[in-house]
């Protein structure tokens, strides 16, 4: 039988490719990646279990009732949104596969049909969000536009304790790699500034006593993030199931 898939026949040049530490750069006409799963790591499961919203994960026995009624999966046709599968990947610790769903996993609309129907009392909606959190705090999820906006928003707020919308807009557009329409925006901003409707730059508002409040908040946030990252790396010995 002739091979009709051109990519399997045409020679492909792979300039720099390393697999398992072996340099395999060169000409390939058929390149099949191994699909064998060799990774059983309980780190993900233990982290999710240790979270208040994730502790019911170990009840799951993979019957698929959640996915069967999931509105993202069925009604909205987002086939790759499969809560049963996410939970399974977390249960067996298949991080490489889980990473592919770092974006999709947040598409849950929290209709909670899964939680209502689960025969074993898994709080599927919460567990799925917890798995998503794991991907976030371990930095496995690629930063999305929403994440970048969050970052710009937080930085902006921390500066004076009050949001500076104009600066936020500028920062976010810069993070997205877009140019702000200069002249038009400048004219609008200037007229708003003069009429007292915009407070930005040196004219921005400021929360009273922010100089004292800011370091406290910053420290709290840094410590919280550090704690979450640490638990994601693995629970301390003896705290496991």
């Amino acid at each position, binding site marked *: 039988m002739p091979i009709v898939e051109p990519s399997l026949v045409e020679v492909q040049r792979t300039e720099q490719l390393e697999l398992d530490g072996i340099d395999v750069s060169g000409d390939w006409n058929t390149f099949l990646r191994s*699909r064998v*799963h060799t990774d059983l790591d309980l780190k993900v*499961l233990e982290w999710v279990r240790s979270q208040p919203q994730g502790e019911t994960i170990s*009840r799951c*026995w*993979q019957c698929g009732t959640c996915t069967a009624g999931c509105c993202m999966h069925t009604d909205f046709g987002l086939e790759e949104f499969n809560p049963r599968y996410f939970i399974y990947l977390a249960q067996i610790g298949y991080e490489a596969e889980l990473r592919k769903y770092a974006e999709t996993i947040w598409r849950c609309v929290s209709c909670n049909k899964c939680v209502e129907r689960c025969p074993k009392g898994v709080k599927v909606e919460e567990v799925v969000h917890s798995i998503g959190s794991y991907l976030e705090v371990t930095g496995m999820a690629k930063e999305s536009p929403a994440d970048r906006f969050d970052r710009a928003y937080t930085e902006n707020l921390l500066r004076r304790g009050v949001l500076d919308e104009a600066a936020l807009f500028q920062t976010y557009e810069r993070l997205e790699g877009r140019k702000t329409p200069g002249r038009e925006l400048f004219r609008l901003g200037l007229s708003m500034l003069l009429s007292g409707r915009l407070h930005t730059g040196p004219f921005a508002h400021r929360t009273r006593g922010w100089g004292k409040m800011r370091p406290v908040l910053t420290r709290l946030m840094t410590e919280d993030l550090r704690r979450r990252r640490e638990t994601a790396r693995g629970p301390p010995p003896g705290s496991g*199931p």
Partner: protein
Amino acid sequence: MNPVLVVGGGPAGLSAAAELASLGAEALLVEKEGYLGGNPKRWHYSLLAPDLKPAEEVLGDLLGKVEGNPRVEVRLGTSVTAVDPAPPGFRVTLQGGKGPEGREVSAVILATGFDHFDSRRKFEYGYGRYPDVLDFKELEGMIHDDKVLRPSDGKPPKRIAWVLCVGSRDLQVGNPWCCRMGCVVSIKQAVEIRQKHPEMEAFVYYMDIRTYGLWEDLYWKSMQQYGVKFIRGRIGQITLAEGGKRLLATGEDTLLSRPTEVPFDMVVLASGMEPGQGTKRMAELFHLPVGPEGFITPKISDINPVDSGVPGLYLAGAATGPKAIPDSVTEGMGAALRAYQHARR
């Protein structure tokens, strides 16, 4: 009244003998091995599912009613080698240490039980070749003595896999039936190990989990309290990994639709139940019908599972199919009552 012959000293036979004695009849308990207690005793079963009560305690209760009981004559290391009808009872020949001996009995209860499947027959799992591939009956003894160590280097295993349905539900070895015990015993072992050694990881490779009836509770607990992990797929082969230091379990993770190859320090095979040697021999000797599986078929298995169809001949325990200890004990009592009724007639 002549004594009632009970063949087999496992839970069913012990229960039958104890029950006969309590009815005021004489029991002649014949056991081919040199001890009473059957498979649970032979393999040093640890805790019994689902109540996690020590096997010794359960057996001890039964043994206490039999050993030293003046109405029960125990003959160890003895087999039944011939039988002739002598209505209303039988005339049997016993072969023991002292040579053949003829006895008149008023009725016979066959409680000849099962044998664990010989896992070597499932050669792709490497049992008998790789020391760290264990049969779960051997792990029972290890857990019992609290010595869960790799036979190859004597070190405690970090990661253990259980492979269910070894020699069960498998036409390749000619055993299409379900052993009924493999799931619950494997899960119980995983729970015992996780209780004592929380640092050891437990994975169970399954096709279906059949912790039927009230045993479901143990299955749920194993996941929720003890963190036992379940992977849906049958292991295809076990080979050596990491220069022979570990075992590589290869199969399909059917929930991933993906091949899986994971190294383990120890692999435990849940070997099924086959008709015991004694069961086969007694079926021949008494000309009893056996099913395609080799277990003795009761005459009416649904409403009278202890009647063989031959007057005066009764069945109890795993001789008629895979059975749990409580079921075997109950059948032992039923068979004792039927034998007593027959003998009194």
